[in-house]
């Protein structure tokens, strides 16, 4: 099926060095796309499929800014957080690696992102022969490669029971770092990550918290660009929109302005890139 597929054995110099140090490394890797990036420094960004908007935003933002520093973003190509991580890296023009739990003839969940990664100079790897079908244990073993490829694993969101805890367990075993962002203690999307934080994960609140662990001295991260100028007449409205979503109706009620006026302001703010609109007529502040 895939004429340009490469088979890299553990003796090959292209085989990722990091992966050799784990327990039971895969003897052969099947690789599509850019095999030269496999030995670059990598960070994996993973999390729930059924993620919150907040989690998606964070995943994309971190992937973007970390990929910009020349670090590979590794993930499992699943829906939700995984996809956002891949897309963030692609957006930044960086490198991304997807690890599959099945053969290349049985891609899960869809081909869209698969193609996008290949088109953007990324790599897709698996330890399974192309004809291997999807099987539950494949995902668990896939997580071992995700954790093994990376210097650290950033878990954005995990519910109480989650596949990501398996990846965390592997990362711990391989003595790699685990990064998490804090969630509200009542938020069920963050029970898993909060538990990891309590145990041994490193709490991070911005990109630098991760980059510091990668010993990157010179960081080209122009903060200037992210300062958005909000015109005075929109300021009142903008101040109401925080990281907690608020509906246009509520804004209209609080500010005592008509809904059409609010709609105008919201469009302007959205075009400026200052806010984002969400399903349910809700708006949140954009995170840059």
């Amino acid at each position: 099926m895939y004429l340009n597929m490469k088979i890299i054995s553990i003796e090959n110099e292209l085989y990722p060095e990091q992966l050799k140090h784990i327990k039971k490394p895969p003897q052969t890797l099947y690789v599509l796309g850019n095999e030269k990036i496999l030995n670059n420094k990598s960070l994996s960004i993973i999390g729930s499929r059924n993620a919150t908007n907040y989690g998606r935003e964070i995943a994309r933002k971190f992937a973007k800014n970390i990929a910009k520093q020349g670090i590979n973003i590794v993930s499992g190509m699943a829906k939700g957080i995984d996809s956002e991580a891949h897309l963030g890296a692609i957006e930044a023009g960086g490198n991304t690696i997807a690890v599959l739990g099945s053969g290349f003839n049985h891609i899960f969940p869809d081909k869209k992102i698969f193609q996008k990664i290949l088109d953007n100079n990324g790599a897709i790897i698996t330890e399974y022969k192309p004809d291997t079908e999807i099987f539950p244990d494949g995902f668990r073993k896939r997580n071992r490669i995700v954790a093994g490829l990376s210097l650290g694993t950033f878990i954005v969101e995990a519910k109480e029971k989650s596949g990501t805890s398996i990846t965390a367990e592997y990362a711990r075993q391989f003595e790699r770092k685990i990064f998490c962002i804090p969630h509200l203690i009542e938020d069920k999307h963050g029970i898993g990550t909060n538990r990891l934080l309590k145990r041994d994960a490193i709490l991070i609140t911005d990109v630098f918290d991760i980059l510091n662990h990668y010993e990157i001295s010179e960081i080209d991260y122009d903060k200037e660009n992210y300062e958005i100028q909000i015109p005075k007449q929109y300021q009142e409205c903008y101040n109401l929109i925080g990281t907690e979503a608020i509906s246009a109706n509520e804004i209209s009620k609080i500010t005592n302005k008509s809904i059409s006026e609010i709609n105008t302001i919201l469009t302007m703010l959205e075009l400026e890139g200052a806010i984002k609109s969400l399903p349910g007529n809700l708006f949140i502040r954009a995170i840059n």
Partner: protein
Amino acid sequence: MLARRLPSILPDLSFEEALEITKIHSIAGILPSNTPIIKTRPFRAPHHTISGVSMVGGGRIPKPGEISLAHYGVLFLDELPEFQKNTLEVLRGPLEDRIVTVSRINATLTYPANFMFAASMNPCPCGYYGSKEKECTCSSNSITKYMGRISGPLLDRIDICVEVSPVKYKKLEQKENIETSEEIKKRVDKARKIQLERYKNLGIYSNAELTPKLIEKHCKLDEKGKQILENAFNKLKLSARAYGRILKVARTIADLADTTNIDVSHIAEAIQYRALDRKYWSN
């Protein structure tokens, strides 16, 4: 409930419009014997089990369908995704051309179909996607499937999309000071009068009927408005069809505000009404 109130704010019929509506109802054989002329705008709300043929018209000698019976009035489809796919797709042509041509072996007839298309739907099968009150239990696959029943081209032809949040119990009880239908109708009538005056020699009645050439003439933007629209196009990835439609909506907002020129706030508001597709149909 909201949509059922729509006829109460529609502008009055002109004599020519009333004649046309009456003719169609008469041909369809549903003009009541005690009604010589129909004086109110029709409001058609067929059930979602309707077939494509009864939507556009048909029969051995084609009779007008729902879209023609809604001529100069409203066609309202409740629970839009529940309609059969082909029933919805047949609307695409008439929504653009405002006429429908039905061909059968015995006759080929063209009926007018200049209606306002209104529809309502849930954001997902369980109805709670995006709600702050209750968490949605649908998988992302089932949401995509549900939304996928409405095609992009059909969505593109809907000018104004508004999301309504669930009403809380407290609000159901309390009586708020809100605009009544009569008050709104006054504004609508005024805006319609402006449009009738503006288009009196052109054979059209409203902004919706503007052709691309007329849009150029009547929906002029200032520099700043142009800039915003261009910005919106690049950022929000709007289609070419959306361009004309946003201008028409902006023209209408300007008419409602009784201003001669479309200004920045009108165009920005019109863009906001296009917000739905990129939120729900983007993935």
